């Protein structure tokens, strides 16, 4: 992997915990300047993979590099430009928010006035400046999450790794942080975000990777992934009455790939990449169908996610 273009490169990471629990081999490449969504169901190995990338867990096989440096060999240079917000972060409850950021800044070697300026700025940025001198033990889950994001940004990192960053946040905060991550990305930074919120990932990420049962199932550009799993565009048709003859007629149209019936609606999957609503409407009317409505349904990340889970059962 070329460190000029690759922020994270993990190759064939394997971690065995027991005969029944293992992760890998996992290979992952996150290019600089992308927002990489790391997906997977609970227990798939997302957090373990992230912790292997950061050098917190030693893989039995494989290696990982951040900007071309192995964090297990040279953590100072590998992690210098990295910000990490863990899932369900735990901080020392005796610290105030201000003290925690100050402590983190000291580890990063940020000195004096610069440290104070950054602490103040970040507390304002994540919306907890009013609680700067409050003990973390008295923070709500959402506030701790905000503080975790602030901590990850203290060193103005080139790579930000966030494990479920919006867990515990209310919808307003979630939107705020999505915009904040986009803004950070627009400054040329690389972001790896692990999340269960698929619509959030779809809105935010440029690239995605999915892990399932400890193995990477896919990774790449989000548009390519959706095209691969989407199996073409789907058109939702609302009809006055659905008859077997009409369903049979539509199913046999040459541009129709698949058809699903649902009470007064049918979902028609058509040829790749073409919006054939007009043709379909004309054919339905021609066949005597009473057309009430018609809308284009794009394949979502959720569809791809569910399709992946279906096609990769555990025993495979």
């Amino acid at each position: 992997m070329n460190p000029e273009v690759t922020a994270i490169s993990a190759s064939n990471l394997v971690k065995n915990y027991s005969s029944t629990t293992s992760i890998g081999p996992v290979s992952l490449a996150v290019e600089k300047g992308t927002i990489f969504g790391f997906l997977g169901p609970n227990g798939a190995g997302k957090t373990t993979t992230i912790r292997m990338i950061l050098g917190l867990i030693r893989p039995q096989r494989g290696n990982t590099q951040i900007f071309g440096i192995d964090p297990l060999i040279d953590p100072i240079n590998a992690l210098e430009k990295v910000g990490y917000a863990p899932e369900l972060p735990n901080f020392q409850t005796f610290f105030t928010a201000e003290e925690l950021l100050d402590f983190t800044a000291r580890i990063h070697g940020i000195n004096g006035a610069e440290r104070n300026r950054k602490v103040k700025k970040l507390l304002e940025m994540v919306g907890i400046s009013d609680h700067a001198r409050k003990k973390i033990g008295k923070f709500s889950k959402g506030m701790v999450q905000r503080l975790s994001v602030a901590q990850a940004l203290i060193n103005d990192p080139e790579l930000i790794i966030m494990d479920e960053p919006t867990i515990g946040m209310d919808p307003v905060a979630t939107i705020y942080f999505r915009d904040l991550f986009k803004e950070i990305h627009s400054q040329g930074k690389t972001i790896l975000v692990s999340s269960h919120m698929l619509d959030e990932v779809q809105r935010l990420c440029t690239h995605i990777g999915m892990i399932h049962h400890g193995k990477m199932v896919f990774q790449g550009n989000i548009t390519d992934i959706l095209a691969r799993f989407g199996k073409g565009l789907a058109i939702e048709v609302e009809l006055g009455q659905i008859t077997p003859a009409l369903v049979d007629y539509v199913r046999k149209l040459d541009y129709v790939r698949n058809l699903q019936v649902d009470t007064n609606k049918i979902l028609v999957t058509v040829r790749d990449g073409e919006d054939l609503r007009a043709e379909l409407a004309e054919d339905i009317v021609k066949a005597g169908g009473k057309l009430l409505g018609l809308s284009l349904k794009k394949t979502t990340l959720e569809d791809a996610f569910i399709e992946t889970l279906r096609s990769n059962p555990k025993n495979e």
Partner: protein
Amino acid sequence: MNDIQRILTIARYEWRRALARRKVFLLIVLTITAEFLPFIVLTQLPIPPAIRIVNSLMWLVGTIFPHALFLQFIAIFISTGATAEEYEQGTADSILSKPIRRTEYLIGKFIGGYSLFAFTAFLTSALAMILSYSTFGPQEFAEFAPAIYISIIFASLVFFTMGFMTGEVFRTSSLAYLVSSTVFIASLILGPFLLLASNLTGEQFYLDIVRWLPNWGASNLPMMVARALFLQNVRLPFGLGDFGIAVNGTILQALTSISIYAIVPMVIAFLRFLRSDVTNKSST
């Protein structure tokens, strides 16, 4: 930022972290309070003229008394939590995902915990000196107090490092505390039994075992240093010059015992830490 600055940042953090634990804080307060105990008792008792010479050595009694028991427990309390509690609370991740070497983290933890312990020992020694002067008048050989203090903190390395190692090996502070304090108490109890066995059988072998118990050097070094520096010139009644030393040995033997019992656990703690994963409460 250089290595030293990172180590000192972690050491300062460890002070705050340890003192934020109520049990550590309370034990330190208790130890300092207990420092008053011998002075209150001794001022209330009619001291026979034959042992009034002890009045001028009360600083030594007050310095060594807490070391014999309380300080060892404080050492164990502080060190068992140093790394174990970070795993238990899931806070190790947030530090070790920063640009810091594992060795720097562990050295910082050790220095932080050990300097807090040394400060506590200093407080008890200073308090012993102040109370001795204020309640028993001028003290003799007080110029040797720094040497006694250094011998105390050096001797305490045995149970401090044992706690540090068990904390890292078990990664559960309560289990680490239980194991370390059991070793301390067991060796305290075992010593007199082995001494008795030696007296009954006349076998030197039992005394050799006593000298290799973890607490022998740890408990006796300060008194052995006091004896070597000034007590051998003082005629103390009732064998008080041998206070606390059931089985004699040389200072070199004590230093060797302490060094071995300090170095081996440190090596184990470092190897375990450097080769293991940073465990966390949540990970999938």
